[in-house]
């Protein structure tokens, strides 16, 4: 497992810089959360299918040394009580993880925006 604890920028007195991130603000659509999506499609599974993958990402980041689990949980708590307090879980956990990774320099907002465009194009492609 690889990765290194690079580019960490701590905000004084906090585990993470709480300033809002434009890209993530544009994604916080409550209508897209699992608690709204699931009943719309009569699905009873309490968690979205991607929840398992999100937890695995958190585990893998910690195992690789890029983002320690305890450190992440502290930062998640701060973000969950402030910036993303209106968003339910697990979407809150996901937004917080992305926020922490951007604010700590593990990825840039531009890189994430580019990857979102790539993934969206791939998932929304319609086979001819």
């Amino acid at each position: 497992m690889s990765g290194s604890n690079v580019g960490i920028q701590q905000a004084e007195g906090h585990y993470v810089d709480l300033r809002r991130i434009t890209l993530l603000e544009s994604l916080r659509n409550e209508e897209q959360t699992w608690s709204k999506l699931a009943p719309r499609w009569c699905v009873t599974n309490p968690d979205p299918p991607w929840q398992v993958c999100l937890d695995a990402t958190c585990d893998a980041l910690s195992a690789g040394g890029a983002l320690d689990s305890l450190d992440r949980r502290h930062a998640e708590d701060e973000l969950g009580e402030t910036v993303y307090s209106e968003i339910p879980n697990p979407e809150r956990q996901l937004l917080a993880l992305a926020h922490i990774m951007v604010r700590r320099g593990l990825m840039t907002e531009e890189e994430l925006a580019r990857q979102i465009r790539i993934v969206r194009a791939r998932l929304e492609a319609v086979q001819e």
Partner: protein
Amino acid sequence: MANTHSHGGHDHPEDGGHDHPAAPMVDEISDFEILELAVRELAIEKGLFTAEDHRAFSEWNDARSPAAGSRMVAKAWTDPAYKSRVFSDPLAASKEVGVDWSEPSGFGTTSDYMHMTVLEDTPTLHHVIVCTLCSCYPRPILGHSPYWYRAPNYRRRIVRWPREVLAEFGLIVPPEVELRVEDSNAKSRFMVLPVRPEGTDGWSEEQLAEIVTRDTMIGIAMPKPGRTSDGPRPIHKASRPVHSGGRPREAAP
């Protein structure tokens, strides 16, 4: 001729094609689904972890559930020798119900240390677990922690006003019963072994395991005949966000 219905441009016979209707699924791509994939792929691209690391943790996560803990409790209720092993060597007792704490890496995960203590309830002693620091939880044996367990509100209040908080969950602990709140820490995981309820004489392990729900092993509910699921729980917001916590200055790099 059997009745048919059109679905997706082709026909299925109503009787004989499928034994049961397809489970409903969300046929819509959400922004969050896209974000999860984007974060993961970018992390792999940057070398923060490998796709193989992620696959291993995904499979491990996907296989976790409270069912193993339920089996452990049911077995302890019916087998005194096993029960003594549950207390003397919980990791070995876990293996007997199919859980190896060393998975998936050979030394567990980075947040599930290989140390577990099982707390035995009695008619005069009740336990409840929490992690005031973050959300430490015996994931290998109980699966993923519920969100209310992770919420700062529960973590802050259960240690201060345990009887009141348990009452909010619908569990009234009589004053004559001693209540102990066990705070998990970075290296210790706890699980509650509840008292076997009356009305279960002669039950099989499988029957008993059905009433040992996740919440009874956290300690916010008691097992009883007929109660086989936990249902939704409220997640209360924090009353004094962030200002009551914050990064300790000595922890700063």
